[in-house]
């Protein structure tokens, strides 16, 4: 006999996503756009947690709000929790303490595993919004210790950077895509020993296919990691045959 346990109102949202408080359009492919996934997700905005506060100022006072929001997601039945900001490795430790479900704050948590998949001498290129603001503290909190990485920032690409940081509310995705493809192509030309890209910046993900066409490198982002964790917390029966 099977017994179903209730006790809450909503069901079927296995992945909870904590969002920074932003106003730019979140494209399909952005983890803050629910149509990015082929399974339901529960989006929860952490009000007041702006890009300026969390990334630019490194202000940790929003932590209590993230913890409350994570607990709320857990109470709503999500089976794992992630965020829309790769810099949030810094809240990984407090969040895993606060809830009982797996938490993966940042795509950067994949770096050690990806580094092991590459031939010796090849490096993981970390594509980030602003390489000046991605510190050893962020990397260490993601489990990155002695892996060889190259930081690749978009701080000199206004077509991308200003959307995330400057509060731009509309943009032309074709223009942003061209800028991102140009940025990564240029970085890979300068760092030919990059064997794979791990994308810290959420907002790059919509352009992953275009970048891969141009540079032909494996690309691991938070959408990929979210799908991996979803497949771990929602196992489905296989339907093949012998």
């Amino acid at each position, binding site marked *: 006999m099977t017994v179903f346990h209730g006790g809450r109102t909503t069901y079927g949202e296995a992945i909870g996503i904590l969002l920074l408080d932003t106003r730019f359009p979140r494209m399909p*492919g952005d983890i803050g756009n629910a149509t990015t996934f082929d399974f339901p997700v529960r989006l929860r905005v952490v009000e007041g947690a702006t890009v300026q506060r969390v990334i630019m100022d490194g202000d940790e006072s929003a932590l209590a709000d993230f913890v409350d929001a994570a607990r709320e997601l857990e109470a709503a039945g999500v089976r*794992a929790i992630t965020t829309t900001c790769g810099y949030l490795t810094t809240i990984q430790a407090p969040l*895993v303490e606060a809830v009982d479900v*797996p938490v993966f704050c940042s795509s950067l948590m994949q770096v050690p595993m990806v580094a*092991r*998949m590459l031939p010796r001498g090849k490096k993981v290129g970390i594509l980030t919004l602003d390489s000046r603001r991605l510190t050893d503290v962020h990397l260490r909190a993601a489990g990155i210790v002695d892996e060889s990485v190259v930081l690749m920032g978009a701080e000199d690409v206004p077509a991308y950077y200003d959307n995330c940081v400057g509060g731009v509310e509309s943009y032309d995705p074709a223009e942003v895509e061209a800028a991102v493809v140009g940025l990564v192509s240029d970085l890979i030309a300068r760092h030919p020993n990059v064997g794979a890209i791990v994308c810290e910046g959420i907002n790059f993900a919509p352009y992953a296919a275009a970048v891969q066409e141009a540079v032909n490198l*494996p690309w691991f982002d938070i959408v990929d990691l979210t*799908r*991996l964790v979803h497949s771990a*917390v929602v196992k489905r029966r296989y339907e093949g045959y012998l």
Partner: protein
Amino acid sequence: MLPDFVEAAKELEAAGVRAITTSCGYLSTFQDTITAAVNVPVFTSSLMQVPMVSRMLPPGKEVAILTIDSRRLTEKTLKASGITDEPVVVMGAEEVPEFYDTYPRGAVEIDPEKVEGAVIGMVQDLLKRNPKVGAIVCEAINYAPYAPGVQAATGIPWFDIIDLTKHVYNAVVKQRYTGYL
């Protein structure tokens, strides 16, 4: 056997694959040699997920490694997967004949319902004895078909080589998104 694996990996690369994996979680010991031989990403074992999964869990929680034979999963195999000081519990099927006498012993016929029942019982027992287990990483390929049954019975997150393979596939074959605002 290692030279044969290296040759076969090179053959796969020449055939155009974008990443290479294996059907045996113990093969993490070949990881370095195979990555040195080809230019595509190589993930020999599901165990490579353990450090990352460990970081996703609350402090004090452990990753349970589900393996065929816990006596044969050595420190060397774990280290080759990047596992150093992560708290892990290793659970093997050596006392579970419904499983152990089939796949590892070359049985050509298997009753999947019987094996599933045994695997579910084995994991329930593991979780009862180790309440600190927060997730399973499944080293052994042959458990994967029974993962949904185990999860339905226990609710435990379960990472296996199928999950990791889908993950790497997503990384090497990026698709355009078709959603909307």
